[in-house]
C-alpha cells in the first residue's frame, strides 16, 4: 500500500468537510474518486500532498501515511513531500513561459539537473511520457499559452512528471476538455500507472470505470464505499452508491 489514510476529519474553519475517512491507496494502480459536487473529493485529494495547508483556517485530524510515514508529522518536509506527490489541476495551469521552461521549472527549483544537456534530456523524456513530444518538439521555446487546452493539460502532466514523483493526484483532469483530448488523457493515465500511483477525481462515471482499478465513492464528506472498480460498478454494497452510479441522483 502506497498511502494509508486513517480516520481523517477535515475542517475549513468551523465547517467540517471530511468525516472519519479511512482508506488505502494501492501502489501502481489508478484509484478513482467519484461523488456529487461538494462532497469533499478535492479536499481529500489535496490533503494527500498537504496542498490544503495553504488555506487559512484549514485543519486536519487523523493520519495520512505515505510509505508508512506520517505526512502531517512535524518532521515531514512539506516541500519534499510535494515533490514526491505531484498534482494535476482541474483547469490546466501552465506558467506563462515557454513549453520548455514549464517542464524544466520543477527540475530547476529542485536542482535535479544543472547542465543544459541534462535538462534537455529530462524535458524530452517527460514530454514523451506525457505523449506530447511529437506535437511540441518544434516549438519548445514558444509560449505554453499557444497550445490547445488538451495539450496544455498534458504539458501540466509532463511538468509534474519531470520532478520524478511517486504519486500523481489528478483533480478532474479532463473535465474542461473535448472528447478527443479526454481520450488522450485517459490513455495517458492508463499508461502512467506502470510507474506511478495515481489518484484521480472524476465526475464522469464511464471514465472511472474505464481507467481505474479501485474506486471510492464520496457523499457529504464521507467515504461511503471503497472497493475494486469492477465491484463498485457491478455489485455496489451500499444503496447510495448504486443510486449514484445509475444516475438516480447527483
Amino acid at each position, binding site marked *: 500500500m502506497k498511502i494509508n489514510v486513517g480516520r481523517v476529519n477535515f475542517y475549513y474553519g468551523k465547517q467540517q468537510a471530511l468525516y472519519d475517512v479511512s482508506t488505502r491507496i494501492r501502489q501502481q494502480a489508478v484509484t478513482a474518486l467519484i461523488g456529487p459536487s461538494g462532497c469533499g473529493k478535492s479536499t481529500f485529494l489535496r490533503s494527500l500532498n498537504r496542498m490544503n495547508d495553504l488555506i487559512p483556517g484549514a485543519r486536519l485530524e487523523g493520519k495520512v501515511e505515505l510509505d508508512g510515514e506520517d505526512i502531517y508529522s512535524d518532521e515531514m518536509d512539506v516541500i519534499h513531500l510535494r515533490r514526491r506527490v505531484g498534482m494535476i489541476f482541474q483547469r490546466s495551469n501552465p506558467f506563462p513561459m515557454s513549453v520548455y521552461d514549464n517542464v524544466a521549472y520543477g527540475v530547476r*527549483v529542485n536542482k535535479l539537473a544543472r547542465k543544459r544537456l541534462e535538462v534537455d534530456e529530462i524535458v524530452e523524456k517527460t514530454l514523451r511520457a506525457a505523449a506530447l513530444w511529437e506535437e511540441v518538439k518544434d516549438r519548445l521555446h514558444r509560449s505554453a499559452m499557444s497550445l490547445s487546452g488538451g495539450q496544455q493539460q498534458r504539458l501540466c502532466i509532463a511538468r509534474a512528471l519531470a520532478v520524478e514523483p511517486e504519486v500523481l493526484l489528478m483533480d478532474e483532469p479532463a473535465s474542461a476538455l473535448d472528447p478527443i483530448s479526454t481520450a488522450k488523457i485517459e490513455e495517458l493515465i492508463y499508461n502512467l500507472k506502470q510507474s506511478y500511483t495515481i489518484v484521480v477525481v472524476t465526475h464522469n462515471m464511464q471514465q472511472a470505470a474505464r481507467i481505474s482499478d479501485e474506486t471510492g465513492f464520496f457523499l457529504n464528506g464521507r467515504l461511503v464505499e471503497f472497493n475494486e472498480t469492477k465491484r463498485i460498478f457491478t455489485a455496489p454494497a451500499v444503496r447510495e452508491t448504486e443510486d449514484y452510479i445509475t444516475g438516480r441522483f447527483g
Partner: protein
Amino acid sequence: MPLSSTVAANAGAPRRVRPLARRLQRGDQIAHLITLIFAATIFIVTALLFYELYTGALLTRQKFGWSFLSGTTWDPVALEFGALPFIYGTLVTSALALIIGVPLGVGAAIFLAELAPLGVSDGLAFIIELLAAVPSVIYGLLAIFTLVPFLRDYVAPLLQSTLGFLPLFQGQSYGVSLLAGGSILAIMVLPFIISISREVLLAVPREQREASLALGATQWETTWNVVVPYAKAGIIGSIFLALARALGETMAVTMVIGNDPRINLSVFAPGYSIAAAIANEFSEATGDMHISALIELGFVLFCITIAVNAVARLLILTTTRKSGAT
C-alpha cells in the same frame, strides 16, 4: 447598464410590448452617442493642449529653434533661453525617485501581497492609499524640515566617504539639492507603486501559485519565479505611472531642489526642474519672450511625459507578448 438589461429582459416578451423595447433600443443609441462625445472630449482636450502650447511658444521657437533644448543659459533679462538645465533637473530627480522608490515600493508590495497576513496587508494598504492623497505642499514641508537636514547631516557624508570618488557624489552639500528633490519624489511615488503592484500581485491566480508549490517549490521560489513574472506587466505599469507623476510634480520639488538653473553633475548640488521653473517664473514673467519660453518649457515637459507613456505601453506590450500572459 440597466438600460440594456431591460432590453434583454423584454426581448422574449410578447408582441404587444415590442414598441417599448424598440424605444429603449433608441435610448441605447443615444447613450452610445453621449459616451462617444465624452470619449472624444478627452482626445480634443489633449489635442487642444498640444496646439495651445505649440502656438504659445511661437516666439522662442522661431528665435532659438532646436537650440532651445540644448542651450544652458536661462537669462530672462538678456532674453537668452536654454532649457537644458531644467530638462536635466527634471530627468535626474525623476531617475533618483525611481532608483530609490522602485526597489522599496516593489519590495513592500511583495511583502504585503505574499508574506503579510491578510489583515495586516489590507490595513497597511489602506494607509498607503491615504498617503497618495496627501497634498504635495505637505510633502514639501516634510522635506524642508526633516528630509533636507537628514540628507545633509547623515546621507551626504556617508555617500561622500564611501562613493565619493564618483563625480556624482562630490562637492559641498547644502541640503537643498537634486538629491533632496529626488528623495521627496521617491516618497511621493511610493504609494502608487506599492498599491498598484500589490493589487496585481494579489490578482495572480491561485492556480499559478499552487502549480509551483505542487512541484516542490518553496514559497519564496514561487513568489520569485512565478508570481512576480506573472504580474510583471502590471508592476511595470505602476512604475511608469510613478514616473509620469514624478516628472510633473511641482510643489514639493520646488521647495527643496534649490531652484538654480545650472547643470551640476553632483546630486548634492542644487538644480531646477521644468515644472518648478514654470511655477516660479510665470507670475513674474513680463516680456512676451519670457512667457513664450516658459510655454515652450511646458511643451517640452508634455512631450517627455507622452514619450514616457509610449515607452511604457511598448514595454508592457512586449513583455506580455513574450510570456504569453494577457
